[in-house]
């Protein structure tokens, strides 16, 4: 099968330092595959995404993207400046203008038809995520990249959003790469899960990953609803495989990944 993106031994340092955010990460995603990246705050999830999109300078390794690959990207926590008046319809035409028919079609596909004339600032969180998804779909992408797409949505909103994602894949055949916190839903709808913490802790089918000791070490607490309290402690029983023999400093809570934003 053709790989859309293939990365080998990718290393990314924190800007201006030789301190790695991500070390020796191998990654690939195939056509039509749904891959989810999970990991605590500061584990390098957003850096991974940006490096795969070619928005970050690598300190080591390489990333190959398939020739002519079209990527639809929904970034994390899009904060829109309320100072700019912007209707949904106008937003879909940024930066490439689209016809009214295309705009209406894509809004219908994401279940928000009729929102075209609405101001972006008047949308609910769920509606806005769907508009962002619609905008990403306009380019008929081979790969959809979603960074924490359900942040700020309530539980039914999250479930509905993932149903939509699966439907999009069925309709368009696009591969989907997601970063997420919503473990249970992620587990249900992904083909492959990558558990990241400065390096790849474990990876595989949702079933394999959820029974892996590395995964339990990272997310055991979270499963009991303690996500917010989670701290990556060095004294946990995180059992390193051979590929994991390096420091966890890159993921210390004092260095949240938002700093390299």
């Amino acid at each position: 099968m053709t790989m859309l993106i293939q990365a080998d031994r990718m290393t990314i340092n924190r800007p201006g330092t030789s301190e790695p955010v991500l070390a020796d990460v191998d990654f690939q995603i195939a056509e039509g595959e749904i891959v989810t990246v999970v990991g605590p705050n500061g584990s390098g999830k957003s850096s991974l995404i940006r490096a795969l999109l070619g928005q970050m300078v690598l300190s080591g390794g390489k990333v190959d993207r398939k020739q002519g690959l079209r990527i639809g990207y929904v970034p994390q926590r899009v904060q829109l400046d309320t100072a700019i008046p912007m209707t949904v319809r106008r937003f879909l035409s940024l930066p490439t203008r689209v016809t009214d028919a295309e705009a209406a079609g894509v809004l219908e596909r994401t279940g928000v038809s009729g929102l075209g004339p609405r101001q972006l600032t008047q949308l609910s969180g769920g509606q806005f995520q769907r508009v962002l998804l619609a905008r990403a779909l306009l380019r008929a992408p081979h790969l959809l990249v979603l960074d924490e797409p359900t942040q700020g949505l309530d539980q039914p909103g999250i479930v509905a959003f993932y149903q939509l994602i699966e439907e999009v894949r069925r309709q368009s055949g696009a591969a989907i790469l997601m970063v997420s916190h919503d473990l249970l839903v992620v587990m249900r709808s992904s083909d492959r899960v990558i558990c990241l913490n400065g390096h790849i802790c474990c990876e595989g089918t949702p079933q394999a990953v959820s029974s892996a000791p590395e995964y339990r070490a990272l997310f055991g607490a979270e499963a009991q609803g303690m996500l917010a309290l989670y701290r990556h402690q060095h004294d946990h029983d995180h059992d390193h495989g051979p590929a994991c023999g390096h420091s966890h400093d890159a993921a210390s809570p004092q260095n949240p990944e938002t700093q390299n934003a």
Partner: protein
Amino acid sequence: MLDDFFVRAVLAGLGLALVAGPLGSFVVWRRMAYFGDSTAHAAILGVAMALAFDMSIYIGTLVVAVSMAFLVSSLVARGQVMDTMLGVLSHSALAFGLVAISFVPSARSDLSGYLFGDILAVGRPDLALIWTGAILVVGLLVLRWQRLVTSSLNEELAMAAGINPKFERLVLSLALAVVVALAIRVVGSLLISAMLIVPAAAARVWARSPERMAAVAALIAAASVVAGLFSSLRLDTPAGPSIVTAAALIFLVSQGVRRT
């Protein structure tokens, strides 16, 4: 018709209004108000330089405004706190300019002309320059409009679409420097930012799209120029401040509209 100083003043003001609308909208969208201030205040330093070396004041202010724009961009890129740093630069630039200008005896007498503008003294060459500059800057904004709007809305979305937000920011900084240089005769160094921000802020209420906000802002700026100049003529008030006063009154009205 151009022989009449008042007609020239109105035309100069309208030229500035044409560019102040769209560019001012970006200043409002991107929260660059203070940035505009420091560039504009630095222009006084440019006036002092121009007078000392016997250059055109347009060249002097343009050079200093461009340098200021670069200085601010590079300091921000190095992680300085934007707000504090602009406060330091903006007022230091003004102070440096005022000190520098005091060494140029010929300029001391018409200092207020540079601080508050001297639109009634605008000559034909000024008029030609203001309109040429305004059309060039508006042309630049129109040409890059989609990219500029996208990166103003959200830099991540822009980057994902292959746009370089840093470059777009640079384009806007340079456009701002050019407009500051053009506007120094019209409203003066202290009120240039007002001319950019006030009409755009008022236009926000009547706009549903970025294009419309830019156009409405230009119209409001034009109306302020006409109203300000006529009241200045009737009431014998200083022209530049009268124009900004008119814009501020329109802004007040717009805020009333919003509440109802």
